[in-house]
């Protein structure tokens, strides 16, 4: 299998990949985890904190989201809950994922 097919692309509109000045250090840390675990072609600072991770935004599918979930829960030491509405919100953007990690992390 070539690696290329597993690499999610950045958003088709280049403007969405520009880093707003508001990306925090913690958001960058989480972005880096995402980029590394999915072998993304973008760099961590190219993931806009408020852009959708799933579908149209960063182009991740639900298996990518699962991979991110597994990696962040291991890295920061927490369990994801079964509440579907929560998960939809948590993984909606880098910003909401980071907020959730900050609130739940045990390490």
């Amino acid at each position, binding site marked *: 299998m070539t690696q290329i097919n597993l690499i999610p692309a950045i958003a088709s509109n280049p403007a969405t990949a520009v880093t707003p000045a508001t990306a925090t250090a913690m958001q960058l840390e989480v972005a880096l985890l995402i980029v590394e675990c999915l072998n993304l072609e973008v760099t961590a600072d190219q993931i806009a904190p408020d852009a959708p991770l799933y579908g149209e935004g960063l182009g991740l599918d639900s298996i990518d*989201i699962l991979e991110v979930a597994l990696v962040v829960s291991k890295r920061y030491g927490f369990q994801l809950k079964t509440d579907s509405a929560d998960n939809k919100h948590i993984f909606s953007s880098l910003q909401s994922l980071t907020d959730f990690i900050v609130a739940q992390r045990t390490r």
Partner: protein
Amino acid sequence: MTSRPATNLRSWADTPERSNMLMLRIMTWISLRLGRRTGRVVLHLIASYFLLFAPASRRASRDYLLLALGRPAKANDLYHHFFTFAATIHDRIYLINRRFDLFDFEVHGEQTLRSMLVDGKGLFLMGAHLGSFEVIRSIGRQNPDLRVAMVMHQENAQKINAMLAAINPEAVQNIIGLGHIDSMIEVSQRLDEGYIVGILADRTPGHDTLYPVRILGADTYLPTGPFRMAALLRRPVIFMTALYMGHNRYAIHFDKLADFSNTARGQRELVMQESIVKYAALLDHYCRAAPYNWFNFFDFWQTTPVAMSGKKLTAHSDPVPAPAPNTTSTITTTATTTITPS
């Protein structure tokens, strides 16, 4: 095989399920009022209808049977194929109504399944549009200790649940709908609860990465998604099919496909590829063993993917490099085909 017009391209989301639902609706009415024996008379009418008035299905059946039988299919082969399809759908009605007494199930490899369930952690059961998957759900209903959740396209899930509710409200399935941000997180949680998670792994929801395989001596592609999911979640994968053997007989087969429990991250791709190849070999084996059980009534053996620009590559501004031989390629399906009589 010759190339097909665009309307015959591989489709997943609506085609056979749509005709499934129509047939199921008609047959539910007949069967629950008139009984299985009378209901089966209607199957002949349905098989005849498909043979006469569903040219796309007929062509797909003929192309498939040429590969599976190793000779050109005759009219009675096509008829047998459509009849088998109709019979399995008809039997779903009775299975949903827990009339297990009507059937003779011959189970092969149950120990394979049991032995992989011993630690109380869930596993994946990968089927195909080959034989009856309703039978496996029935096994779940017959054995309260085996809890089964099916992963499927959300739209189909809704239709099927509506239908199940109409036939037997107690039978409404534990279904995990695809196409949500948290679909796979839900799969993960069901597995943690010890569920058997079933998925039909021979079709893609249109945007999955595909892997080239050979089935029945011809090139085709299989979606990698189901295998990627199993690899990520580090679970065993068992292949399952329930082949219709005529009358009231089904032969159920469980075969070990892969076990990702201890697969290191670096080995994941390799083990995934091996398991896709093994899945293809099992499809090949059972298609030859029970040729009329293949229920993909569209051009499964497409010679080339429609577009090499897959979902994750379309956003690149650079041209997509052509895949080297024996690598994955991605496919985007836009056209759909229909076998629904209309």
